[in-house]
């Protein structure tokens, strides 16, 4: 026969279980806005019957089984990759959309300067001894050189700005990696007692998400409960409780722009063999991809155009009879758009006189003819066509990056929503959970009250 004291004991255990329900709901509500938090559930289980009455077991109430988290491992495995891809394309798109040096309507743009330069030459070709026209042509040449320098300078400024972003992201990734390694240790220690440290798992997931955004890293869970972090190409950034470091150092082979270095856990720093993903990858792609390509093409245009003009200029003579020298100076093909300058300062040094047997009535016409000269590279690539190709090529990259950014962001948001749908806190759910716990608690107190009354009745028997 079940004794009243067993009933009271069972009620006590059941009350504790309801309190745990209430406490878990409260914890969920309090962390509803905590990034990375996965809602928890107090699992209440029946206390195993310890008493048999006439061949039947009598129940002993309820107790807290475990506090579990609502997680969907399938979804969570997809989220880091989506975070990395979205961060990468967004970083690239943002970087490219911030570049205005190649805007078609930009004041002092290369198109206007090139047009004004050849206009100046044409005016001079019509009246080559006119000092005003010679001075204007020389001024237009200087403006063209400045436009090359300004456009390339703006593009290089954008690249150096991205260097700052890369250095900052590398430092941030190092901090995040250290946090993950530290949490691996804390979680390992917490699991020793057999309990699952849910909140530490959430915190580690938050840092892993951030690492995915910064580097596009992939994660591997171990049987010890650790999560190891690997960058693209498999280079380890976090191994158990040891974290590596990402750093950035100037790369002379890339115009002094920063190159990433990885110091793996317990290893020595070396250049990162495979470009990372995430924000770092996007910034690198923008810097060395579309913007870097535009800079190289601009250098090629400046070098080839200067070469053509110099050849034409050197085939003529000045009105004073001196042989024409170079019209522009450039310091080699690399960096030509930055170094291009007009080689002469006196309009009288313009070699506008051509040989009598030449194809033109004056050498200024030979200079004008370079406007239709093919500058090498793609077929039909005159200076005008090359400028058009540089602009449209950069635009295509910017458009592609924006499109990828929108697409990747949509996937990231979709997966994040699905993850939130499983793991997120619903205030409505938790309010109901609290009401449920309150009702249960009230009912159990009634059980205690009745048992107490029965005990009292029993005690008063005479």
């Amino acid at each position, binding site marked *: 026969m079940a004794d009243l004291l067993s009933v009271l004991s069972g009620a006590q255990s059941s009350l504790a279980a309801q309190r745990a329900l209430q406490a878990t709901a409260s914890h969920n509500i309090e962390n*509803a806005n905590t990034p990375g938090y996965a809602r928890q559930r107090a699992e209440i289980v029946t206390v195993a019957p310890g008493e048999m009455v006439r061949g039947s077991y009598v129940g002993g109430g309820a107790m807290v089984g475990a506090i579990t988290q609502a997680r969907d491992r399938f979804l969570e495995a997809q989220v880091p990759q989506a975070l990395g891809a979205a961060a990468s394309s967004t970083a690239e798109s943002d970087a*490219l*959309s911030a570049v205005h040096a*190649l*805007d*078609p*309507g930009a004041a002092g*743009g290369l*198109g*206007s300067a*090139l*047009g*004004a330069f*050849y*206009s100046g030459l*044409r*005016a001079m*070709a*019509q*009246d080559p*001894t*006119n000092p005003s026209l010679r001075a204007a042509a020389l001024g237009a040449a200087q403006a063209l050189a400045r436009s090359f320098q300004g456009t390339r300078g703006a593009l290089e400024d954008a690249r150096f700005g991205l260097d700052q972003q890369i250095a900052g992201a590398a430092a941030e990734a190092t901090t995040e990696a250290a946090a993950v390694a530290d949490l691996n240790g804390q979680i390992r220690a917490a699991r020793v007692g057999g309990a699952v440290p849910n909140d530490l798992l959430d915190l580690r997931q938050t840092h892993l998400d951030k690492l995915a955004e910064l580097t596009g890293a992939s994660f591997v869970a171990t049987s010890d409960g650790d999560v190891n972090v690997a960058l693209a190409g498999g280079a380890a950034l976090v191994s158990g409780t040891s974290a590596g470091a990402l750093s950035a150092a100037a790369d002379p082979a890339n115009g002094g722009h920063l190159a990433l270095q990885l110091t793996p856990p317990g290893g020595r720093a070396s250049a990162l063999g495979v470009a990372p993903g995430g924000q770092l990858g996007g910034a690198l792609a923008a810097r060395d991809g579309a913007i870097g390509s535009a800079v190289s093409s601009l250098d090629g245009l400046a070098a080839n155009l200067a070469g053509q003009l110099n050849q034409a200029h050197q085939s003529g003579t000045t*009105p004073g009879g001196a042989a024409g020298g170079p019209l522009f100076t450039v310091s080699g093909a690399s960096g030509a758009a930055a170094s291009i300058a007009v080689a002469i300062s006196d309009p009288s040094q313009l070699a506008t006189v051509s040989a*009598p047997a030449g194809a*033109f*009535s*004056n050498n200024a*016409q030979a200079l*004008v*003819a370079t*406007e*239709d000269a093919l500058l090498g590279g793609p077929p039909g690539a005159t*200076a*005008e066509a090359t*400028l*058009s190709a*540089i*602009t*449209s*090529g*950069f*635009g*295509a990259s*910017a*458009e592609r990056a*924006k499109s990828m950014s929108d697409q990747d962001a949509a996937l990231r*948001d979709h997966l*994040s*929503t*699905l993850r*939130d*749908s*499983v793991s*997120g*806190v*619903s*205030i*409505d759910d938790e*309010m109901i959970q609290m*009401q449920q716990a309150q009702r249960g608690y009230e009912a159990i107190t009634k059980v205690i009250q009745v048992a107490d009354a029965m005990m009292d009745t029993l005690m008063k028997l005479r």
Partner: protein
Amino acid sequence: LRVTDRIIFERGTTDIAASRERAESAQRVASTGLRVEAPGDDPAAAGTLAAAPVAEARFRAIGAAASAASDELQAADGALSQIGSSLARARELATQFSSSTYDATGRAGAAAEVDSLLRDVVGQLNTRVGGRYLFSGTADAQKPFDPNTLAFSGSTQQRTVEVAPGVFQPASVAADVAIKGTAGGVDVLATLSQLRDALATGTAATVQSTIGALATSVEQVTAARVQAGVSMNALGAAVTASSTAADSVKSRASHLSDADIVSAATELAFSQTALQASMAATAQGFKLSLVDYLR
């Protein structure tokens, strides 16, 4: 889908941000009137727009150069007209004084007039416009005719000017041909000089011997004027054609870069309405909570 509070708030944030971005973009297009501002807005159009100033400037410069060359040819034609008048007067004098009616004294008076005509012709041939000689070919700074020796020291190379990309048109009078007769004609200045000398010291017969050369001189100058007229016509056509081409480039660029005002205004109104709707819907979503009903 289980909808959590975070989903509601994040979706509100995302949706409003997207609507606001679209409204801002529409507002920018409507206020600037530009459809293509950055290369990424329309890469192909941006490439064309980047090169448009070069193409437009090319045609404008061709037009300006052709116009200036035409002005110079106009001046040269004016000078040739004067020279033609002088030659006509000289021929008239030669015809008149080739008659034995006039004695040496009469011819000496005519010689003085022909000398004056010769000086006028040389003066016309040494005309400068904008600081350069019209009849010196490509030797702009070189005075073409020596007033004393009547020698030609200009360039025999004609000036040319670009009338279309890569197409050149003569833009000067070949004085060596028209005046010095190097292409099988007569030397106009020498003929005038001979007439002057014949009038001063010769006979009626020697005066008469210059009439043929004078007639040829008039023809040469007339031919040069015709050639100048042809060039002026070509240059005038080039001015018109280049202006049309430049306007066409500008128009095409405008067509590529400018927004359609009606579409821009419609998109602006639509995007603003969408933003308001997004805000209203999000705010409504925030209001619904079980917390408000549990007491």
